C-alpha cells in the first residue's frame, strides 16, 4: 500500500522533471534567432495561419501562399529607407528573374495597420513591381501574422504625438511547400539576393 503510494510519487516527480526539461528545451530553441533555428531544425516552424487583406481589397490568408515559393517581409509606408529599398530591391530581382519571376510570390506585410490602409498600400505599391502583394489588417491580425513569422515590431513615439516603427528587416524565404528556406538581409549584395532567389526557385 505504502510502496504503491511511493511509486506514484516517484512517477509524478519524474513526469515533472521531464516536463521541466522539455519546457526548458523548447524555450531555449524559441529564444534563438531564425538563423540558429534553421541550423538546428532545418524545418523549424516559421510561418503559419494568418488572415489579412491584400492591397486589392481581397482577403488574403496563408492558404493563398500554398504551391508557390514566396518571399515575405514586414515594413510600413512611413519608412524612409529600409522599406522602399527592400521593395525596390525585390522589384529589380523580379525583373532580373525574367519569366521565372512569375514563379515567385513577393509579399509585403505592414506593421503599421493604423496608417497603412488597403488604399494607401495600393497607391504606394504603384511605385514597384505589380506582382508584389501588400497586406494589411486589424492590429490584432497583423500582430498574429508577425507572431507566426516570429517577426518583431514596436511603435516608437516621436514628436507631436506621432510615431515610427522598429521592425524585423529580413526578407523571409519559403519554398513551394511552405517550409522556411532562409532569409535575405538589408543591404545584402544584389548578386547574393538574386542567387538566393534562384536557389529558392530551383528547390
Amino acid at each position: 500500500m505504502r510502496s504503491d503510494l511511493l511509486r506514484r510519487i516517484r512517477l509524478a516527480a519524474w513526469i515533472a522533471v521531464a516536463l521541466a526539461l522539455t519546457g526548458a528545451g523548447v524555450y531555449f530553441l524559441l529564444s534563438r534567432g531564425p538563423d540558429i533555428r534553421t541550423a538546428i531544425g532545418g524545418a523549424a516552424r516559421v510561418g503559419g495561419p494568418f488572415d489579412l487583406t491584400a492591397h486589392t481589397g481581397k482577403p488574403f490568408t496563408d492558404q493563398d501562399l500554398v504551391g508557390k515559393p514566396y518571399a515575405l517581409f514586414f515594413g510600413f509606408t512611413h519608412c524612409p529607407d529600409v522599406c522602399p529599398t527592400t521593395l525596390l530591391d525585390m522589384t529589380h530581382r523580379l525583373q532580373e528573374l525574367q519569366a521565372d519571376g512569375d514563379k515567385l510570390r513577393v509579399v509585403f506585410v505592414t506593421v503599421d495597420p493604423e496608417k497603412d490602409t488597403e488604399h494607401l498600400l495600393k497607391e504606394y505599391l504603384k511605385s514597384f513591381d505589380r506582382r508584389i502583394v501588400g497586406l494589411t489588417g486589424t492590429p490584432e491580425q497583423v500582430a498574429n501574422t508577425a507572431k507566426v513569422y516570429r517577426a518583431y515590431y514596436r511603435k516608437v513615439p516621436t514628436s507631436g504625438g506621432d510615431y515610427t516603427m522598429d521592425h524585423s528587416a529580413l526578407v523571409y524565404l519559403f519554398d513551394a511547400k511552405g517550409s522556411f528556406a532562409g532569409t535575405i538581409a538589408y543591404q545584402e549584395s544584389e548578386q547574393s539576393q538574386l542567387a538566393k532567389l534562384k536557389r529558392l526557385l530551383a528547390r
Partner: protein
Amino acid sequence: MKSTLCLFFLVTFVGLSQASERDFKVGSIRIVHPWTRQPPAAAKVAGGFMTLTNTGAEGDRLIGGTAIGVGRFEVHEMSMVDGVMKMRQLRAGLELKPGETVVLQPGGYHVMLMEVKTLPKAGVDLKGTLVFEKAGTVEIAYRVEPLGAKSSDGHDHGGTAKSAPKGSGSGSGRGAPTNAQ
C-alpha cells in the same frame, strides 16, 4: 599682364563656384551635398542625407529645419540590430563636436522629412533650411535622386568621418526638443 590677372580671377572664381555648388556654410558649419530621393507614390516621408563639418572651436548641434512641401522635420538615427531596424529621434539634435565631420547617410543618421505634401521629384532640387543651435539657420537645396537610390554622386566622403554607431541606442533623453516646424 592685365589679361593674365583676369584669367587668374576667372579660373579662381569658376573653381570656387563649382566646389561650392552643392555645399553650404553657416558660421563654422559646412554642409556638403545634401540629397534625398524620390519617395514611392503616396509616401509621407523622405530621408535627407549630407555631410556636416564643424570647423569651429565650439560644439554645435543640428536641431531642426524645414523643406518645401514638408510639414515636419526631425533628426533621426537608424540602426540595424540582429535584423531589426530601429529608428530613434535625436530629440536633442545631432551633436557636432569642434572639428568633427558627421555623415548623414542611409542606414545611419538622417533628417526625416515628414508629413510630406508635395513629393520630391528626381532631378528637381528640394529647397529647405537647416537650423543649428549656435550657427543659426541656413538655406540649402537637396539634390533629389531617383527612387531607392543608395547614394548620391558628386562628393567623396573621406574616411575619417563618423557615422551612426552600429547597435547603439543613444540619442534619447538628451534635453531640448527638435525644432519641428
